């Protein structure tokens, strides 16, 4: 992307026209001389040419450009750029003492969104002496620029900010005044936890959406690269430079996230430590002084990824950081209760499961806030009052609640509630919760004080509990109106926990026909019969529940078991739901599960969406090994694939975990019981 903001900025650093006025004083290094602008005033569709000459009073060998641009009094850009690397494409440093002449052409497109652009640019040299200060004010739009210097024609390409087209798109494609919220973004460093890498971004995005700044959150994009001085995002790294408008938003996200550990003010980035140190000097020094110096207490911390940095090396980094500029010299070190924690991030990366010897990148950050990762321990399943065999791990439950946008004033529901693990974390974040399950023994547990409700009491969130209802997901009893804000589910797929729904077994039907029984269900001790609930039906019913009962904007967050043969086309779809995220958690060599987040984006219209065939839904293919018939797949190939084995109990391959063995046993057990199994659900007297 080529945008002329920088061209203007650069031009303005050396050229002053009547577009521009000086905000500097006589002590500035550059004395601005003659300026000619044509046409004057600028005309839409015709390039403006600016010719100018200035006198450098001393040599400028390096320095920094600070630029602020606002539109209609709203801040748009706040840039700090190294002088030499910004200008080296057409004019290498140094700028020697004496006269320098410049010529600049800025094409003005015929379609310009109007707006009063105010730019203020200051340039400082290697000694932090101001070279120049100019402000420009014009109804103008900033586009690609071509720059001539001393008759050399060079294209000025800088990949920053947005292209004109994107700007127009952002402003709704109209040529009218842009909406007034174009926030100034600040650079931050998101320090993730090392676990569950695939779940990081979905959680961050969900929280940004919940707190209303998703459209202003940048990571891995041009804006965020600008933040990290145009560096690519590193794969697998738990360090992610992001940009967003305010620290308050950072704190809001930090109050909820469990995949994050902390947030930092991002001070500087460098591919080598030397470069990091150089870039620190480009950070506004007065700001740095205020935070580091003035008798404030601080400590340094070295955070490395990929391998542990030896203590001696850490000390060298700290030493060099202290010496680089005076900022930290006047502060006091306090290791116990520092006012500021300055963290040097060292990213060694991971290559072929071995750490690399040289770090890929360094960052310097100032810690702002921590996240409530202690919640993972608070909700630890091991410490819970009442759990079942498939209670969800607390960390994943918390992430699900975040992705489900659980918050005060919303209703969350789990149609396969079991012991209520997923509901607890939603309730923790303020949602009112309802659950249903086909097996009421799950709710009742071991009786008063050892049941589902007692878990809510344990965590002091009893007032968030609405009700649990004994119900079959294939015949959901909820009124067909949108009233649920979040559906969270870990559906039974017949691998670890058998999936059952109500129905009459074939054998029973035959026996009743033979004996002429017609009223078996009326007996007082009658036990409701259950049959297997095929995975494709579980998914179909779940998506249907989401489509019909979720409010528009509500979310469905559920686990989908898959194999290593998973393809994106295996995902069940519904015309009212769109996929927000899809993150994989590896379980074994062969088995995966995916956390799928969907959003209901349009109303369910019965005349359109009722009676859709499975093909029209998307694809829920019964014969598909990915999830169509997992149990059979399991029985056929075992957990690690290969040809089917004849002897039972010998399927366990090398290197499998204990958990997996347990799963396997469960699966086998179910395979044997098949249709002979006695119905699981308690009888209902009538």
């Amino acid at each position, binding site marked *: 992307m080529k945008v002329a903001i920088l061209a203007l900025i650069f031009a303005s650093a050396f050229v002053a026209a009547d577009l521009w006025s000086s905000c500097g004083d006589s002590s500035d290094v550059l004395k601005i001389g003659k300026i000619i602008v044509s046409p004057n005033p600028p005309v839409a569709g015709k390039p403006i040419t600016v010719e100018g000459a200035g006198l450098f009073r001393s040599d400028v060998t390096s320095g920094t450009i600070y630029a602020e641009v606002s539109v209609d009094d709203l801040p748009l850009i706040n840039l700090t750029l190294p002088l030499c690397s910004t200008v080296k494409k057409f004019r290498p440093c140094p700028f020697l003492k004496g006269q320098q002449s410049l010529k600049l052409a800025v094409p003005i497109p015929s379609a310009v969104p109007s707006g009063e652009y105010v730019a203020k640019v200051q340039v400082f040299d290697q000694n932090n002496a101001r070279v120049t200060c100019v402000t420009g004010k014009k109804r103008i739009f900033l586009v690609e620029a071509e720059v001539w210097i001393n008759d050399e024609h060079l294209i000025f390409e800088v990949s920053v900010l947005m292209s004109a087209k994107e700007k127009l798109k952002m402003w709704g494609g109209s040529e009218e005044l842009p909406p007034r919220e174009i926030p100034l973004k600040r650079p931050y460093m998101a320090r993730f936890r090392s676990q569950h890498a695939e779940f990081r971004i979905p959680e961050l995005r969900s929280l940004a959406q919940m707190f209303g700044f998703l459209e202003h959150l940048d990571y891995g994009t041009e804006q965020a690269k600008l933040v990290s001085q145009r560096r690519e995002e590193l794969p697998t790294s738990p360090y992610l430079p992001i940009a967003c408008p305010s620290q308050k938003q950072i704190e809001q996200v930090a109050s909820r996230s469990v995949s994050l550990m902390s947030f930092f003010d991002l001070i500087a980035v460098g591919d080598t430590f030397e470069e990091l140190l150089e870039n620190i000097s480009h950070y506004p020094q007065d700001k740095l002084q205020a935070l580091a110096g003035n008798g404030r207490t601080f400590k340094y911390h070295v955070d490395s990824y990929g391998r542990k940095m030896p203590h001696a090396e850490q000390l060298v980094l700290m030493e060099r950081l202290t010496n680089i500029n005076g900022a930290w010299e006047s502060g006091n070190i306090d290791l116990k209760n520092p006012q500021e924690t300055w963290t040097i991030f060292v990213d060694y990366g991971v290559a072929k499961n071995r750490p690399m010897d040289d770090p890929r990148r360094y960052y310097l950050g100032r810690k702002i806030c921590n996240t409530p990762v202690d919640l993972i321990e608070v909700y630890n399943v091991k410490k819970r009052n009442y759990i079942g065999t498939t209670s969800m791990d607390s960390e994943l439950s918390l992430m699900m609640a975040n992705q489900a946008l659980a918050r*005060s*004033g*919303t*209703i969350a529901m789990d149609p396969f509630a079991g012991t209520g693990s997923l509901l607890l974390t939603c309730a923790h974040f*303020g949602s*009112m919760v*309802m659950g*249903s399950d*086909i097996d*009421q023994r799950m*709710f*009742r547990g071991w009786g008063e004080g050892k049941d589902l409700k007692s878990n809510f009491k344990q965590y002091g969130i*009893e*007032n*968030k509990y*609405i*009700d*649990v*209802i*004994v*119900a*079959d997901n*294939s*015949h*959901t*009893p*909820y*009124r*067909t*109106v949108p*009233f649920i804000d979040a559906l969270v589910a870990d559906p039974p797929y017949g691998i670890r926990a058998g999936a059952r729904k*109500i*129905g*009459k077994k074939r054998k029973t039907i035959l026996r009743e026909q033979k004996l002429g029984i017609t009223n078996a*269900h009326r007996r007082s001790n*009658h036990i*409701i*019969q259950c049959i297997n609930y095929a995975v494709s039906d579980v998914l179909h019913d779940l998506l249907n529940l989401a489509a019909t009962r979720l409010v528009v904007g509500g979310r469905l967050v559920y686990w989908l078991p898959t194999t290593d043969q998973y393809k994106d086309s295996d995902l069940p779809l519904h015309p009212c739901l769109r996929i927000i995220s899809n993150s994989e958690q590896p379980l074994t060599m062969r088995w995966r599960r995916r956390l799928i987040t969907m959003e209901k984006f349009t109303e369910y219209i019965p005349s359109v969406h009722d009676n859709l065939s499975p093909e029209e839904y998307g694809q829920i293919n019964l014969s598909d090994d990915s999830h169509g018939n997992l149990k059979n797949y399991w029985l056929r190939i075992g957990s690690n694939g290969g040809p089917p084995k004849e002897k039972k109990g010998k399927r366990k391959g090398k290197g499998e975990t204990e958990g997996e063995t347990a799963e396997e046993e469960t699966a086998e057990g179910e395979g044997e019981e098949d249709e002979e199994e006695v119905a699981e*659900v308690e009888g*209902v*007297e*009538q």
Partner: protein
Amino acid sequence: MRILSHNMLQCIVKGCGAANYPLRLNGEAVHKESEYNEDFIKHMMSKIDYPALYQASQDVKIDLPSSLPEDYLDNEEFLKKIHDVTHIEEGGLYCNNCKRIYPIKNGIVNMLLNENEV
């Protein structure tokens, strides 16, 4: 079971028809104190079918206004009343249309069908 939950449930017997909502309520209302959650109740009010709630309140002899007060979102007294509208510990929901009974035991309603009803 909260009486508010009753508002979200319908009869699911196959062939019960369009008159499967609201269900009637049978049982004794038990008052349970719970912390007033204004966000929730205001949110809930936008989803609630008031005539169904009123009928349920009549069934278990709770005093509610027969129609939704116009200023209900600002009427804290009314909202608190709805919020506290009580629980049914033992009893049942029954469908006026097909006469199916869904029992409530220990405060949990059982909405399961019999295999011959699906």
